[in-house]
């Protein structure tokens, strides 16, 4: 990851597209193919058959109906986190505290859901719990947001610190306060399967996926079609210009932080209410930081992020089984993601210098 401001790069405004679309697709597809080839070469060096590995991944995650459902289910929290990160990064804010926001929101909704279920019907319970999750996410972002807005304190440091505190606090809460006395391993009370988020059309995919897709689309529209979104883009691209133009920079910073953390909190709530039903102590999927490279691969574009999330989700679901079958470490998936980033940067660089040369000739 380079150190440049996240809000830089091509602006997401109307008037793009058309002839540039093919080039954009190529700029994404070429690195993907190169990363898969380079990853295959690494497998060859390890003495494994890359085609075996990729075949297993594909079969497990997409070709088999059960696997495909799992892949799509896995997308829901990733998409919500991505939506949250797009808002923050576009506004030039490095919200790297996603893990803490996600986990605390998950614990809050996991603790609340079984209690509320005793008095309320399923619909209101789920809605209230998702709202609670989002709210907890927002609250956990307030300290970094206010420090950034008021004193200009670097949010990379504060969000990461709050993330450590958040994951620890979540554990403490589960182990000391919110644990279910009927289980041996400390965990929150479990939400009954029939009280969880409704499944879609008799599949195992819960409706959180729809919510997540909707969130991504809404965020994309907000960034491209509204005055608020454009102000966030200006803030992200040039903070001095935002002050010069008379924006309420402090307020914008806090609001962007809140939307970002709220969506990430919502991701935590959806994951608990849709899949797990409870939170065990020491559970931390650490999705917050995993999604960061995906969002940059998609160049902070909401629609592109859906594709990348699907790709990554399939790798995660299929990668585990494939790694076991072929006999490579499970974290091999991360090697692929890293290669992908590397090639993306490389292709971007080559493309830029090609354009510069063309400009020279013109």
């Amino acid at each position: 990851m380079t150190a440049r401001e996240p809000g830089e790069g091509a602006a997401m405004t109307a008037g793009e597209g058309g002839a540039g679309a093919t080039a954009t697709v190529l700029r994404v597809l070429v690195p993907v193919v190169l990363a898969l080839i380079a990853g295959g070469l690494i497998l060859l060096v390890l003495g494994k058959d890359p085609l075996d590995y990729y075949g297993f991944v594909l079969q497990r995650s997409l070709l088999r109906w059960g696997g495909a459902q799992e892949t799509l289910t896995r997308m829901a929290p990733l998409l919500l986190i991505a939506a949250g990160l797009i808002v923050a990064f576009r506004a030039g804010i490095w919200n790297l505290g996603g893990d803490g926001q996600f986990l605390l929101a998950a614990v809050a909704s996991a603790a609340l859901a079984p209690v509320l279920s005793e008095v309320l019907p399923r619909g209101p319970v789920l809605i209230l719990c998702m709202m609670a999750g989002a709210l907890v996410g927002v609250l956990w972002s307030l300290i970094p947001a206010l420090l950034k807005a008021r004193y200009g304190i670097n949010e990379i440091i504060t969000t990461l610190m709050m993330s450590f505190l958040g994951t620890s606090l979540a554990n403490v809460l589960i182990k000391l306060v919110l644990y279910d006395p009927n289980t041996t391993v400390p965990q929150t009370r479990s939400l009954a399967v029939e009280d969880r988020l409704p499944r879609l059309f008799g599949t195992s995919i819960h409706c959180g996926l729809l919510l997540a897709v909707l969130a991504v689309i809404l965020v994309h529209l907000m960034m491209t079609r509204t005055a608020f979104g454009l102000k966030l883009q200006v803030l992200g691209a040039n903070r001095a210009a935002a002050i010069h133009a008379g924006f309420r920079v402090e307020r914008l910073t806090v609001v962007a932080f809140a939307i970002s953390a709220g969506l990430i909190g919502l991701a935590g709530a959806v994951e608990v209410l849709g899949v797990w039903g409870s939170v065990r102590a020491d559970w931390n999927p650490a999705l917050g930081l995993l999604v960061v490279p995906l969002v940059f691969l998609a160049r902070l574009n909401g629609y592109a992020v859906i594709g990348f999330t699907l790709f990554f989700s399939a790798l995660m679901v299929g990668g585990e089984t494939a790694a076991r079958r072929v006999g490579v470490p499970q974290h091999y998936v991360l090697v692929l993601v890293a290669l992908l980033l590397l090639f993306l940067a490389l292709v971007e660089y080559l493309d830029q210098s090609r354009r510069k040369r063309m400009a020279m000739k013109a």
Partner: protein
Amino acid sequence: MATVAALRKVTKRFPGIVALDGVSLEFHAGEIHVLLGENGAGKSTLVGLLAGMQQPEEGEILIGGKPERIDSPRRSMDLGIGAVFQQILLVPSLTVIENLMLGGSWLRPLARAAALRRFTELSALLGVSLDPDARVSGMSLGEQQQVEIMRALWRGEKLLLLDEPTSMLTPQGVADLGRMMRRLREQGVALILITHKLLEAYEFGDRISVLRLGRVAGEIDPERLRTLSEAERTEAVIRMMFGEPAGEGEPAVEGEAPREGHAPREGHEKEVAILLGRKLHDAHAGNRSAPAILSVRDLSTTPDFTETALHEVSFDLWAGEVLGIAGVDGNGQKHLAEALAGQRPLRQGRITVAGTDVTQGRVPERRQCGIRYVTDDRLGEGTVGTLSVAINFLLKEIGAPPYWRHGIVDWDLIHRDAREKILRNDVRTPSEFTPIGKLSGGNIQKVLLARELDAEANVAILNKPTYGLDLQNQRLALDRIGAAAARGVAVIVISTDLDELLEISDRIGVMFQGRLAGIVDNDDAAPDKVRRLMTGAAA
């Protein structure tokens, strides 16, 4: 006379332009060689080539008669070439001697004793007395420039390049610099002085070369220069800058006697006036019978890290009047502009516009009252380089109807109107979608001027509106400012270029250490009064 450095048919291209086109020049020991030319004529590229920051594509550079490949600033310095740029490039938190030792090798320990010896040597050479252990941040701009010159000469003193060195100096500083240049000349150093002011060229130069559109348009050698009167010199230079192409053969210095003494070429009177720093003032004379439109009382701001804060600044401004703000850079001008525009909180004071107290208002409220601000930092603050020209036209109106309704954008309307504004203001851009950062400074300034000097403007603050523009665009900017004043806008122009202020202002105020040292009427005595105020003396 020995030729220290020479360019032979040097060509350098950048995307879209030929910066230098077959340029041949010679620089001699013990001579101050002035390079004149508009912005974009290729002066800076020439400096870049000699300083090792760029390499020529064709042709060669000879140093001491030998062809050299100057592929890095280090190589350039090793060859005895030093460059002093417009901006100060010292580390403010370090001392003089530390700054001078910075260029050394990575691994070798710092040799303070040796450095001090060289420092003493150069001090004697330049005739300056600086404390080697003084912190740079506490020094005046003139002293800082002396350190810059020392650093440029640190590893040898064959050739010294000075790129518009007087632009930020006080009159005293300019005089000191002139003394230093003459001393170096006596020591046999070849000096290249880049300027766009004719009078400076006459005062310091032994030889004058004019660059135009990347070519040498002509040269006046020392013998010739001595025999010409000032009027004749001007006539010759003007011809080279604007007149017939004098590329081939002898430059156009032979000549018919200048017509009517000073008469410049037809159609270029205004550019010539800027070059000569001659006054071209036609008073718009604000209407003093009506109450002042802008009234500022006891304005003070809180100091921050870089800029000087304001101390109890008070003045009145009438509609249709142009108030120039002179002063050496960094004496509170930036705070004054920002405080008036509403983007900087006030410590104390009161601002009223047309009788309405706007002290509490921020930028949107101030804009509502017709206050407009054109910043001097066009790309860093005035625009968002990655966003389109169309958006930058509306940067301060985001969310306002008719372009946004209930916060939802109407891109078609924005782009349609932007096309029209681009035509009306003659902005040279491929399209309204082009990121504004890709445009030239002059075109970006056209966008800013169009945005700020709109029909609803009452009070316009312009911070260095012509800074970094070529003559044509300087002219254009000043014309638009004049037109706005004629429309009845009260205008404040902040500039470090006194000649420019003398040209357009009705009154001139001087900032010194955060205070408004005084305001003088723009009459014949104004230049002297302003110069005195700039140094902190009473008018």
